[in-house]
């Protein structure tokens, strides 16, 4: 007996749910494993135990010397936030211009901007070191913000441009005909519609800045050390202090998660606004 249309739909839906759950499981198992490790004592970590005597000791240890995660957490937050606040507005203006205007050498310029990110950081870190040294930017948070802005800018421009490209130009043109200035158009029409794109780009840039490692390692000493460099502290001579690493990892991930949750609502809202004309 062939299945009815409704039955087919049900099976198809059920299959979808199963697939989603499978995918999600694969995505989350490593994280759950780390989360468990963060509460384990060093010995238990290697015993693959699912049930163990949990301890909060690891979280306490990582905030003490020599790890001092608290200060590094603060530095990372400041650097990543400042980077986004500086980079996104600049990138948005440029992305709008690239999207809406013809200009000579536009493609070339876009490509060159992107290409600056092709070179591995390793190659340019030493010239940067020398440059920062001469400018007095070594071991400063603003030096890190400068570097991270440079790193995320090409991606921000490309991502935001991609979103602006997808926004129909009609509304803007109508407003221009009605007498609005270009700036007003950007502020009142484009920005709200591009909001999900801006949000996505902001998160992306925040995460890149948050996780940036090599420059932070070479360009900081004591005051401006960020979390990822701090993570490397757990790769001790004896080997990876896995339980501490996991605890630090949890600390690093939780703010990201909270941030994303908060922003997600705005994300969803923005999407429906964009779809309605």
């Amino acid at each position, binding site marked *: 007996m062939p299945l009815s249309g409704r039955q087919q739909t049900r099976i198809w839906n059920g299959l979808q749910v199963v697939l989603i759950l499978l995918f999600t499981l694969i995505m989350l198992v490593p994280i759950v494993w780390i989360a468990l490790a963060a509460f384990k*004592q*060093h*010995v238990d970590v*290697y*015993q693959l135990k699912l049930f163990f005597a949990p301890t909060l000791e690891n979280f306490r240890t990582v905030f003490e010397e*020599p790890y001092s995660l608290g200060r590094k957490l603060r530095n990372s937050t400041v650097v990543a936030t400042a980077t986004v606040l500086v980079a996104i507005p600049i990138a948005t203006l440029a992305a709008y211009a690239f999207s809406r205007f013809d200009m000579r050498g536009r493609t070339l310029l876009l490509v060159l901007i992107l290409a600056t990110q092709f070179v591995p950081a390793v190659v340019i870190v*030493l010239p940067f*070191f*020398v440059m920062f*040294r001469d400018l007095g930017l*070594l071991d400063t948070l603003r030096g890190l913000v400068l570097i991270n802005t440079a790193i995320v800018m090409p991606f921000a421009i490309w991502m935001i441009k991609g979103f602006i490209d997808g926004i129909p130009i009609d509304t803007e043109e109508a407003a221009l005909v009605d007498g609005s200035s270009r700036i007003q158009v950007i502020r009142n029409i484009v920005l709200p519609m591009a909001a999900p794109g801006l949000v996505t780009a902001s998160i992306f840039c925040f995460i890149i800045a948050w996780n940036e490692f*090599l420059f932070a*390692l*070479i360009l900081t*000493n*004591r005051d401006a050390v960020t979390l990822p*460099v701090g993570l*490397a*502290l*757990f*790769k*001790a*001579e*004896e*080997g*990876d202090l896995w339980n501490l690493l996991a605890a630090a990892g949890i600390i690093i991930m939780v703010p990201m998660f909270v941030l994303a949750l908060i922003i997600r609502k705005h994300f969803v809202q923005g999407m429906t606004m964009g779809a309605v004309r």
Partner: protein
Amino acid sequence: MLVNSASRHSVTAVVATAAFLMSNVALAEKYGLKDGKPYDGTTLNILSVVTPQFDGLMLRDEEFTELTGIETEWTFIPFGSLQEKITAEGVAANGAYDVVNYLDSWGPPNAHWLERIDERLAEDGISMDRYPAAFAKSAQFEGETLGFPLRAHAQLMFYRKDLIPEPPASWADVVNISKDLRENHPDIEPLALYFNNDGNRQNLFVWLNFLWAAGADVFDGEGRPAWASEDGLKATEDYIALHTEHNATNPASLSFVEQDARQSFMQGKSAMIPVWWWAYSSMINPETSVLAEDQVAFTGMPAYEGETVTYAISMPFSISSYSDDKDAAWEFLKWLSNPEMDKANATEREVAGKPIVNNVVTHISSLQDAEVNAANAGIQEAAWRSLESSDIMPQIAEWPEVGDVLSGAIAEAAAGGDVRELMSAAAEQATKILKRAGRID
């Protein structure tokens, strides 16, 4: 009444201060420090690796500041990131750090900005003979001394006393013990080795034992690769055979790096492991190991063909040539490396309220000291015997590159490749590298 107590107080005060000052003078003399605090007010920046041993030294340096008026600021960098830091310091050339700590194999590429201290040693009557030959050599470059080997290690063979009644004296013994274990204790792997090539050249540590005992060496007198000699090839084959032929090793040794192998031992999954002496304290620590103290024993490295030559490694402290306070830095090094503190750091389990567990000492006097040994189950004595015939890896700037070629060959051989072919190909590649660097022609 009041007058009397006041004068009594002031007398006490004067006497106490005098005693204090005199003891300080005595201390300063003992450490060989200049009197009169000529560098009062200087601040020294110290770059160091993260380790409890150096925590112990840092926590004690109030004493140094009191004696000299020199302030110290320690920056601790984890081992995994230290090399990049040192490289960057060498390029920055701005003396951000006055005293730096590094792995001995990074000495040659950075030697151009590390102060030679031979003259200072002679002036202050300090001799490098106070260290075992291998340790001293590791802090030297082309015959000149770069610094003091504050943290240095000897190899020992650790084994499960409860499963292995007689410690192995030779690698042939190791093979026999492994056979026994496979029969009588099949639930545990016999020997944990580490063949994985992860860029740290760890799989060479035990290989060198075989190579040197066979009378071969890494380079010959002219600096050309010499490990592909007949003796060298045979030694390498015997090293690899532990895994491929005799089945004496934990099969996972192929993917183990040193820390994985140590974990394997500490989790009770392997019964023997040749590794650094500092691993002992974690092996008997219930927070890191499932083993009890009476299950873990150690002995010297096994002999190969009747000979034992072990590999030693160190992390010396040197003065940066870019420092503006080299003389003050020298005062610091003198104090930092003094034998009393070397000993205290391995016997006192607490400094300034912080627990410090460390068994690393580098002075010969400390290695043979009865108290030090008593506090550390006699491991220093065992290490001293291991160090009596030991050597270090070649101290040339191109060693990391050449060493990696070797390390790759060893890893491939252990995975089943032809030992002779691989080692000979490695010798060819190494010759190319050395020629290009202008070290040989």
